[in-house]
């Protein structure tokens, strides 16, 4: 009995260990969004996002704290949080999905890749496929993806009075680095 138990424990331990070893957390990240509108361009950066990557099944997830977007104008940042993103209620945006291409994670290389999964912004879930590049070099995995978000898709309302100030489509650039060593 004890023997069986020990075997099971060892087995479970080794499995979780394996899973651990192949789940990587992001070491650094930068999420930037940019929107061009008639009156003024709006740009913000976020360095506080975190991601995980599980190489065993190509799954990845990214969590973006909304309040950590930094704008050039403080008032714009406040309005972004208060009236548009309602970040007290919807603290994080996220993406969880599967990388569709076969990637050799243990070897240096460059890939054009796509990921399909759920984009979660402003409390709304949407199935999306985003495009990007994956560069594996010196024990580091770099992700870079550029995609567009239509703010109407996520039920972010713009009052008529400021509609010319804000673009309907926002360009998002997401960069994330995972260290495998």
């Amino acid at each position, binding site marked *: 009995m004890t023997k069986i138990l020990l075997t099971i424990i060892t087995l479970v331990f080794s499995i979780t260990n394996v899973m651990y070893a192949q789940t990587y957390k992001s070491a650094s990240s930068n999420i930037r969004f940019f929107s061009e509108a008639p009156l003024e361009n709006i740009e913000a950066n976020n360095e506080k996002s975190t991601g995980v990557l599980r190489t065993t099944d190509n799954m990845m997830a990214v969590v973006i*704290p909304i309040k950590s977007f930094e704008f050039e104008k403080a*008032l714009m940042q406040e309005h972004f949080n208060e009236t548009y993103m309602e970040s007290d209620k919807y603290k994080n945006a996220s993406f969880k999905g599967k990388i569709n291409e076969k990637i050799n994670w243990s070897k240096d290389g460059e890939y054009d890749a796509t990921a399909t999964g759920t984009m979660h912004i402003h409390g709304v879930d949407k199935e999306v496929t985003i495009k990007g590049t994956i560069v594996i070099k010196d024990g580091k995995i770099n992700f870079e993806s550029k995609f567009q978000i239509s703010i109407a898709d996520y039920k972010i309302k713009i009052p008529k009075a400021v509609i010319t100030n804000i673009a309907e489509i926002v360009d998002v650039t997401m960069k994330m680095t995972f260290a495998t060593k």
Partner: protein
Amino acid sequence: MRIFTTLTLLFFSLLSFAQDDLLDMLEDESDANNNSEVFATWKTMRLVNIHSTEMVKKNALDFRVTHRFGNMGAESGGGGHTLYGLDNSSDIRISFDYGITEKWQIGIGRSKYKELIDLSTKYKLLAQKEKNAPLTIVAFGAVSITPQKDPDTRYSDWQNRLTYVAEVLFARKFGQRLSIELAPGIIHRNMVTQVLDGEGNTLTDENTNFTLGGGARFMITKRVGIIVDYVHTFSEFRGNYKPQNFYDPFGVGVEIETGGHVFHLTLTNAPAIIENAYLPETTDSWAKGGVKLGFNISRVFQLGKH
């Protein structure tokens, strides 16, 4: 022994289960590290009459134009022939306030009322946070000087032109809609009046008075809210002096934020816009029609990096 095995297995299966949802893992972490400051307790640095705990952001300039028309009621000099006070102006003030840091701002303003020029400063002592910090606390101080022509000899000492105000503002935002503030303060006037009370006694106004203000905002939509405030000046003189009544300033208004501007449409019995003047000198009463329509426009310019 059997139970032990089952428990161990259960434990490990739970562990790997939790591990399985990558998103949960991150979200838990993100929420745990999250104790951010509560923002936008107020939309702008004043309610109707009192200062709010809102600060001008670092390197930003808040340009404000505030206007108070004349008394609306006929009993207080208003009525139809002045279009309910619109023909008159009790006070007009233009001001600039600048954020030196996120926690410290300075300002200068000029009022029509007694031609007052005021210098003011606010310092944020504590910011309300989601956890462990229930209040925002801001210290406010202002000094005003009147450059009016001397009608007699009252300004023979130039220091008689000065009035000082200091307040500590305590505010809390309750959810998305409601913010409440309490504002105890002190006012010191270098020069006060001496009057006869009608029964042959001489009464002297106090140089120093304690004051207590309170205010609130309730948001109706994300951009439109109702603001109210009230201030009481503790004064024995004001209680004893019969020929002239003093009243506590009470203001109510609508606040509209349009993205770049904050507009206030207000009703108040205060004759002046700054504390240094309305705290000791409000002699108009709501009950007697001494209410003034007013407005305020605030435009913030970001002059440098915040």
